[in-house]
């Protein structure tokens, strides 16, 4: 793990995330896969229903869900609040696997196979059965790969996007950061404007 200012390396998924971060006065709107939104909405509805009814996942096997859930909890762990798995990140990934990330999904599956093979070879157990610190060390070895980058990206989307996509169950991810989706707010909005003397420019 490192901080923001480290040198960059190549990688499609890294580039994708980097573009979201460019903050160049632009909205980040880019189609990841050219999916029409009507199909996306349908896939979202499925994921949401599965999450609501605890139904089996449509595009992710039970074993894959264990791997992805463990990775999600490494990326955005439980502290005094729930981690990404409890927030529903795996349900979001199921939605993504069946829609806008379908093209990249074979790469993610191959990454999971490789991760579990290495875990089995070295420790005699699948990745999700390893203790937390060992999982962390294994992921540090692959944190520059498109596989890890994609799961990282999907984990954050699963924690903080609208619950209708399967994650952010009961808006618990939003509650953790202090966000609330409302259609109207009134000033003052924050600490500093509450103290402001409006006379200056009125």
């Amino acid at each position, binding site marked *: 793990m490192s901080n*923001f*200012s480290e040198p960059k390396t190549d990688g499609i998924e890294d580039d994708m995330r980097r573009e979201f971060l*460019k903050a160049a006065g632009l909205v980040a709107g880019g189609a990841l896969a050219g999916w029409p939104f009507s199909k996306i909405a349908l896939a979202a509805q499925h994921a949401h229903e599965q999450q609501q009814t605890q139904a089996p996942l449509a595009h992710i096997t039970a074993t894959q869900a264990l791997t992805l859930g463990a990775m999600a909890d490494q990326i955005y762990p439980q502290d005094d609040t729930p981690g990404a798995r409890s927030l529903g990140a795996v349900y979001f990934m199921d939605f993504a696997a069946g829609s806008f990330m379908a093209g990249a999904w074979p790469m993610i599956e191959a990454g999971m196979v490789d991760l579990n093979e290495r875990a089995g070879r070295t420790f005699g157990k699948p990745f999700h059965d390893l203790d937390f610190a060992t999982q962390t060390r294994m992921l540090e070895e692959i*944190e520059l790969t498109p596989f*890890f980058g994609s799961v990282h990206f999907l984990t954050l989307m699963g924690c903080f996007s609208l619950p209708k996509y399967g994650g952010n169950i009961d808006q618990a991810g939003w509650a953790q950061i202090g966000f609330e989706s409302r259609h109207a707010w009134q000033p003052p909005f924050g600490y500093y*404007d509450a103290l402001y003397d409006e006379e200056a420019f009125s």
Partner: protein
Amino acid sequence: MSAFDTTRRYPTREPVDFVIVGSGAAGGVLARELSQAGFDVVVLEQGPYRMASDFGHDEVKNMMLGDLTSHPGWADPQSFRYDPTETAVVGNGGLPPALYARTVGGSSVHFSGNYWRMRPLDFKERSLLGPMSGTGFADWPLTYEELEPYYTKAEYEIGVSGTPGPFDAPRSRPFPMPPMPVKSSGVLLEKGALAMGWHPQPAPMAILSQPYRGRPPCSHCGFCIGFGCEMNAKSSTLVTMIPEALATGRCEIRPLSTVYRIETGSRGRVEEVLYVDADGQQQAQKARAVVLAANGAETPRLLLMSDGPDHPDGLSNGSGLVGKYLMGNGHSFIHGYFEHELNDWKSIQVTRIVHDFYATDPQRGFYGGGGMDGRPLVNSMPVLHAMTESGANPPRWGAQFKRDVRHGFNRHMGILSSTTSVPVERNNITLDPSAKDAIGRPLVRMTYRDHDDDLAMMQFLQDRGNEILDAAGAQRIWREPVEPQTAHAHLLGTCRMGTDPARSVVDPYHRSHEVENLFICDGSSMVSSGRGQPTLTIQALAFRAAEHIGQAARQGEI
């Protein structure tokens, strides 16, 4: 998507007075002005007819999947390269290099509402500063004073909130509405800038601070940048110009209509506009005159695609300048976290700006100027906030990352700097020589590398932003690296106006130098880039163009 019941339908096989390609910042104004002047107008818009009820707070839909910025019916990617020696590629993480909204109202629907006038110097900087070798640095064929009445008209017809700042150009009328309520990012920008001895001012915004012409004021929902307004408080052409155009009974908005060719007749005049309709069928709309307002990327693409035996390099391209001198404005961004909660994710993006570095200062050692504003940028949205905090390569993750994400959402602000772009010929829009979109059009190919002076100005203002955040008491400050940009929401200069047909594409009133019944009016008309918020200038130009085009039509001069 909801259908809007336009009462008027024009047959395609009979010529209408004007076909306008594009319904955005410029196209919406032209449609309203020309239909109110008594002409029959058909507007062809490639996007769907979305209304306020179609807009919401869905970050995945809007930001990750590009619902507003993608074509709804088929893939229409764009290719990019920094330099002419490279082979352009489609990539960029899915972010279109020419970033614009495909919807009725165009990018005026999803923009942030920053609505700056240019200043007198912007129109004559070549004369003020002298030549810049190897560039297309030039004066405009009009002055600020000539455009001022149209700036005023745009502010009143569109609906703008603000109050004059100490460096603003003279104005003939006050702002129609007082400024928007200040946010904590505005307060802190003001505090830091005042401590540095600078002159912060309220931001002029095309967002309503009061009820105006039947529309409600902003409800501060926070989903503004990149989103359509669910309250109709953002002054897009969707909710200002276009309903008024439809009310004349002489304007038809034809959504989901993607133009692929302008056809000329035997006399070299434009005769019909070919497009693919909502059902994927090829159509042709006859017209007495055509106005292109498709933006600074799609307008040159269409001209370059409309070649013919007597214009082999594209329509209206005898100068060879169609698509060239693309300017995107430079941008740099710096983040800060403060001790107390700003909640900068509420309300609009920008409430205070700093224009102390607007003019070029030779002592800086390079050409350029710009403005700065306090805002959340994409940190106003939960997913993008977390991604911004995660950094890039390798991404941050784990317990400390989570603490920062949770701590920072309410305590974040940034300073966005916007700068001039030097017009250089190698920065351009051309047709991709190999890749085509799903209906067979060559892709938009963008070639762009920010001029060294642009990068220097971006860096200069980021440094000033650091000083502001520091003086305002930020607890943690970090920068987005300044580097050549690969995506542009401001698409300027690609069909520049001028008096010399060898050095410009349109005359000072937006008429093609070569095709007498073809007009081009959008960001492509601009000769210089301004300081980073071009929408008001584009709309003022559109009001002015419509007046002259209407007069010419009435006098039988088209």
